[in-house]
């Protein structure tokens, strides 16, 4: 294989855009365009653990699939280790690993060992190397002793660790992890985060997508927040938090609240977002705003006739910073 061309960043993305085209209707077919990525730019250094954060449908998975050569961009460019992901797919595929979240993506009727051996052959890894590397990975990822059990008998955490082992089979320089902790219990998720951080400390470049702000904050060197296909913030987790550091939070609970009431809250000066969450017997409303005292004094007037419970004011957390950036309302 020819040597890598010189490159400044392990991952370089410029003006990346992806538009999915689909057809709607049964007899009268109409063409529908869905913009998944709308011109994003990223530059990720070698050995960096980079997190891409965003809500569902923001464009995280599309970004990963383009960078792992599974999708073609509509326009823009993307290079991994100096190689173009569109035209140099073979060279890129040899040097990267990827792990998609969830339980699928494994042969459940075969053992964990057989899954790894199969993929080692598809990655064109010499048998003498795979015979050494597979037991090493199984031991590192805590699967030793269960490797000859069928995957269908594995817990979700074990399946996710097997995914990670598969992603590391070719000892990749760049590892892509698409929501790797989704569905894992807190202990399993923490263990996986520690493993990922350890890989980055060993010099691997890691591109992680997640919608858990605390996860990115715990392990990432830098993060970008993506919303509707556009990067809305980029920097260290600390700098992202500082951007919303001036914002406070007002929270209260109500039995019910009409959409007009929420609209009146959103129209208040200094309010950046209003988020609702269903509780067992109440609706919890979270308001991100510049001046919590001002908002609190106006609540009674704006929501006349609505009984408010547990009204409180507090400083913004990491989760609030993320919600404020993506402007999510649920």
């Amino acid at each position: 294989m020819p040597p890598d061309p010189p490159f400044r960043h392990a991952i370089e993305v410029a003006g990346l855009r992806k538009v999915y085209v689909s057809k709607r209707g049964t007899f009268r077919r109409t063409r529908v365009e869905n913009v998944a990525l709308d011109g994003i730019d990223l530059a990720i250094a070698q050995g960096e653990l980079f997190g891409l954060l965003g809500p569902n449908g923001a464009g995280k998975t599309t970004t990963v699939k383009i960078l792992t050569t599974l999708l073609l961009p509509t326009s823009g460019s993307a290079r991994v280790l100096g190689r173009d992901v569109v035209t140099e797919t073979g060279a890129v595929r040899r040097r990267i690993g990827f792990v998609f979240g969830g339980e699928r993506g494994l042969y459940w009727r075969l053992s964990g060992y057989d899954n790894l051996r199969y993929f080692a052959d598809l990655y064109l890894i010499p048998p003498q190397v795979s015979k050494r590397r597979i037991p090493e990975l199984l031991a590192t990822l805590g699967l030793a002793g269960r490797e000859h059990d069928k995957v269908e008998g594995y817990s979700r955490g074990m399946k996710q660790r097997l995914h990670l082992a598969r992603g590391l089979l070719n000892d990749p320089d760049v590892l892509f992890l698409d929501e790797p902790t989704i569905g894992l219990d807190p202990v399993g998720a923490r263990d996986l985060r520690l493993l990922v951080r350890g890989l980055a400390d060993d010099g691997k470049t890691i591109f992680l997508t997640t919608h858990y702000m605390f996860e990115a904050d715990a392990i990432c060197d830098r993060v970008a927040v993506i919303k509707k296909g556009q990067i809305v913030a980029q920097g260290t987790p600390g700098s992202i938090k500082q951007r919303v550091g001036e914002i406070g939070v007002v929270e209260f609970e109500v039995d019910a609240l009409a959409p007009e009431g929420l609209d009146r809250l959103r129209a208040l000066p200094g309010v950046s977002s209003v988020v609702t969450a269903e509780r067992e017997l109440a609706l919890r409303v979270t308001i991100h705003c510049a001046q919590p005292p001002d908002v609190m004094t106006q609540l009674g007037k704006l929501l006349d006739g609505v009984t408010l419970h547990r009204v409180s004011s507090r400083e913004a957390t990491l989760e609030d910073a993320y919600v404020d950036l993506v402007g999510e309302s649920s």
Partner: protein
Amino acid sequence: MRALMRAAWSAFEMSLRLRVVNPWTYLNWLVFPVIFAATGLFMLSSSGIDRVAYGVLGGGIIGFWSVAYLDGGNAIQDERWQGTLEQIFAVPAPLLVIVIGKIVSSVLLGLLAFIPTVALAYFGFHAVLPALDPLRFAVSLGVLTFSFFIISVALTPLFAVWRWAFTVLNGLELAVYGLCGFMFPVSQLPGWLQPVSYVLSPTWATRALYASASPSPNAGIAGWWLVALGLSVAYLALSVLLYRYVDVRARVTGELALA
């Protein structure tokens, strides 16, 4: 090159192991061919030695075709449902190498379809093929196997890129029974349909197979082998273009994943 051959072998081995534990495989090579063979033998056992060959071998050819062609496509559908289709698409080994490994396992399993059908003919109907020329029969079966293998390799990428392809090609599986003369001679088809049969390589391989098992003059058998092989090579050339197209198409639409 050795690494690619190892990848193909691994795909073959994996595919075989997954099929062995899949009940659908047994329906295709064991149950369905016997049903077809029994029907053919009931209808043809008193029609003369030329026609009995269609009863004895027809069910086996149908089973062979079903496993080689449909199971190959089904294997790709299974990969999609398991979420592994994207994984095997994004490995350094070319998709063609993986598909070849999978189809070889289909073809070998498909050949097993002749065992129950020939056994049924012999033990159930006392039907034998006394005029069978073993050498010509073996070569014809080899040509038929190559023909099925190439068609499966060529069409499998369609299953990867279009989810509806499996439904359409499932229907074509039945059409091929008639068009390629699996259970009756192509000459029985309407004249306007016969040209379609002649561009399908299994037609010529099947014709050679039946000729090698019947007492009728079969001077043209070598020519039929060559036509079947020539058409297969042409399909292979077209499939190279198809694989290139599928590689781009799959990456444009993202059809490899379920969601």
